[in-house]
């Protein structure tokens, strides 16, 4: 088991990639704090982990609230005694208007919604988690970026900017805490079959699948395995890196 007796915190753990990360980390021996805005689905993830015989807790987290990140970390420490790993995974692809628009037509509130969850949320997570990991004598953080952390796609201005931001923040934090035994990395999923694609029609989903050289969308567990690996001691020399799991998308 990759994460035996470790304690991990996963934001956006209620559904999609985040739920899969929580499940795989638990399968690999971790006690998992599932953090999400969605209490019902978040508790479902917790129950799935418990049903598989591992330990899990749910914590209500609005990732745009710095104070709640601090509380989430304290909750993990209180409930499980420490924190070894965190995955800042909460993310959205559209703002409150649910529209995908070119930069010149995008609303300021949509921009702020996306930046707040995808970039500010990761920053708030890092600044709450890093002190806990230092107290722990080291640990690992994985941030869920995206292929949009390296390239762009039309009508995704805020999303692309936020994910590029996550990659830069990840590298900077990695340099700063390399000497403290804390490794910090980012993963770059391609388009993955999750609720984040729920606004897409079947034809649009097929179109997205065709953008990948492998000709299909990713599965949540294919990202979760990579996150679990990066969180484990097997990745002891990996920090400040941006790891793709994208079916060849970025190689084109």
């Amino acid at each position, binding site marked *: 088991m990759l994460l035996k007796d470790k304690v991990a915190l996963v934001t956006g753990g209620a559904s999609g990639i985040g739920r899969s990360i929580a499940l795989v980390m638990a399968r690999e021996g971790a006690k998992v704090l599932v953090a999400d805005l969605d209490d019902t689905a978040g508790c479902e993830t917790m129950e799935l982990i418990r049903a598989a015989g591992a330990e899990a807790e749910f914590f209500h987290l609005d990732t745009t609230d710095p104070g709640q990140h601090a509380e989430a970390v304290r909750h993990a420490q209180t409930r499980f005694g420490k924190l070894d790993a965190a995955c800042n995974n909460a993310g959205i692809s559209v703002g409150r208007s649910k529209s995908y628009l070119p930069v010149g037509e995008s609303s300021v509130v949509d921009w702020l919604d996306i930046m707040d969850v995808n970039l500010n949320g990761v920053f708030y997570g890092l600044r709450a988690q890093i002190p806990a990991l230092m107290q722990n004598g080291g640990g690992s953080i994985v941030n869920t970026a995206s292929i949009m952390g390296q390239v762009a796609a039309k009508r995704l201005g805020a999303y692309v900017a936020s994910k590029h931001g996550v990659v830069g923040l990840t590298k900077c934090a990695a*340099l700063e805490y390399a000497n403290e035994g804390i490794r910090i990395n980012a993963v770059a999923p391609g388009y993955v079959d999750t609720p984040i694609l729920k606004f897409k029609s079947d034809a649009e989903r097929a179109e997205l699948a065709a953008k990948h050289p492998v000709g299909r969308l990713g599965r949540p567990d294919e990202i979760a395995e*990579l996150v679990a690996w990066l969180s484990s001691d097997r990745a002891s020399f*990996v920090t*400040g*890196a941006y790891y793709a799991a994208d*079916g060849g998308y970025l190689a084109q």
Partner: protein
Amino acid sequence: MRRFEQKSILVTGGAAGIGLAAAQCFIREGGYVTLVDVDERALRQAVENLGSSAAYCVADVSDARQTQEYIACSMSRNERIDIALLNAGIEGPIATIDGTRIEDFDRVMSVNVRSAWLALASLLPLMRRQGGGSIVMTSSISGLRGTAGQGAYVASKHALVGLMKTAALEGAPHGIRVNAVCPAPVQTRMIEALENGFNSASPEDAKKMILSGIPLNRYAAPDEIANLIAYLASDEAGFCTGAAYPVDGGASAGPARHIQES
């Protein structure tokens, strides 16, 4: 769970260092490994230590006919190749571009790049017929950035990244995944040669200079690279293809000198 149960695995540059560490990893999890190298004595020793799951074939990987031979040798044992680690490589002499002899440049490109191209040219059709496979290539942090005094090596490792991406695109419709690992200096024979090459009077100073560029402030152990190779080679990495994965102690994240804060 043993990730490489009954898998047939080819490892070039397998007599020592990263290749040998990867072979150990594969065998520990149930794989059968054919090691390829130019150094027969080291190969024999390695296979003796690895046990009956390992075999070897002596070959110069830059030679077209010998490439056919080592692939045939691996096929004759297991009738398929599920995983290939194209890892053979040399560092070449430390010299500025204008101070490098043409034959030294050609030698580095031949052992590091021509070899990989030759292997891919045989492995891609073979894996296509099998219905899939996974190939991992050993590039380097020098495949992602430049280093003064290592023109040929840097060019060769960048070339491997480009070749890897192309092979990934060509293999994708056939279930063949191709990826590269990009290590920072690893504690192997090669790093000792590099320390001497950069500063023969004081390899210790060369080591300090090299480590000052690695945020984790140490060389990697061969196992740490082997762990990543094993992950990418395994089915767990099913959506990973066409990517170069740094395993470099943070070196490619930024120019990370250990500067005292003022």
